[in-house]
């Protein structure tokens, strides 16, 4: 199956790969996985006092589409508020990357990852 140019671009030059300190109260961490294909994704956000995402990092073990989906999300969420980020839809990701139907689940995984990161951050803040 051929990957789209957008997927190849993110796959070859992934943006924002890395790790943040999960214990930092300003950092939210989302860990998700897709058992059927064995993909694992970690997506982290750094949130400022105004509730705006200042930075994002990811690490994904999986196929090109899963890597591209998470890479794209880290680019998009920078500058977003938490509400905006948690409303991010997988269909937008799939559309931007021109994912074929069999790879839609990769964009779903990225959506779940950013939601999990926002939830984790909010949970920490409410403590």
């Amino acid at each position, binding site marked *: 199956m051929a990957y789209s140019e957008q997927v190849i671009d993110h796959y070859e030059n992934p943006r924002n790969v890395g790790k943040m300190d999960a214990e930092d109260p300003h950092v939210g961490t989302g*860990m*998700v*996985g*897709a*058992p*059927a294909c*064995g993909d694992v994704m*970690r997506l982290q956000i750094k949130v400022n006092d105004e509730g705006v995402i200042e930075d994002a990092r990811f690490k994904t073990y999986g196929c090109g589409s899963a890597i591209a989906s998470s890479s794209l999300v880290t680019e998009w969420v920078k500058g977003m508020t938490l509400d905006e980020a948690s409303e991010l839809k997988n269909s937008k990701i799939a559309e931007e990357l021109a994912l074929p139907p069999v790879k839609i*689940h990769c964009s*779903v995984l990225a959506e779940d990852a950013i939601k999990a990161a926002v939830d984790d951050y909010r949970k920490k803040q409410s403590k």
Partner: protein
Amino acid sequence: MDITQNYFEFLGLPVSFDVDPAQLSERYRALQQELHPDRHSHQSEREQRIAVQYTTYLNEALATLKSPLKRAQYLLSLQGVDTLSDSRKQLDPMFLMEQMELRERVAEATDHADPEAELDALEQQVDAEIKGLEAGFAKAWGNSNLEEAEQVVRKMQFMVKLRTEVEALEDRLFDD
């Protein structure tokens, strides 16, 4: 013999996670002989076609029941629980974190001072985890705890995939 029977019934085995490998291959061989084309060559075309169909079913049954992961997934599917497609139910973060760490170790193994020893150690650890999960499945299944059984199967899927990756890497690095 009847292909509306499930794989266990078809092979004359109890519907259970606990399958005796010797018994499984013995039943398989017996049925395979019974279905062999040579024994059906004198029969009508229709009967021969049925024998071929049954053989296909028999091979699927063997492949499914031989692998602990596939056997577990099949048992759940008989109860209407589908673990072959992805669900959005997420696994506990601790498990995923561990998965991530194991993946990192696999990715870094080639740069390790002794890649062969590192990969051996990884393989042993993954094997031990899989054994533990198999025991966990047997227990959950025995207690009719389908939810727990499903969780365990999803973890097994990750670990089995990881083992395949470790093995593929070992082949690439050491078996030229």
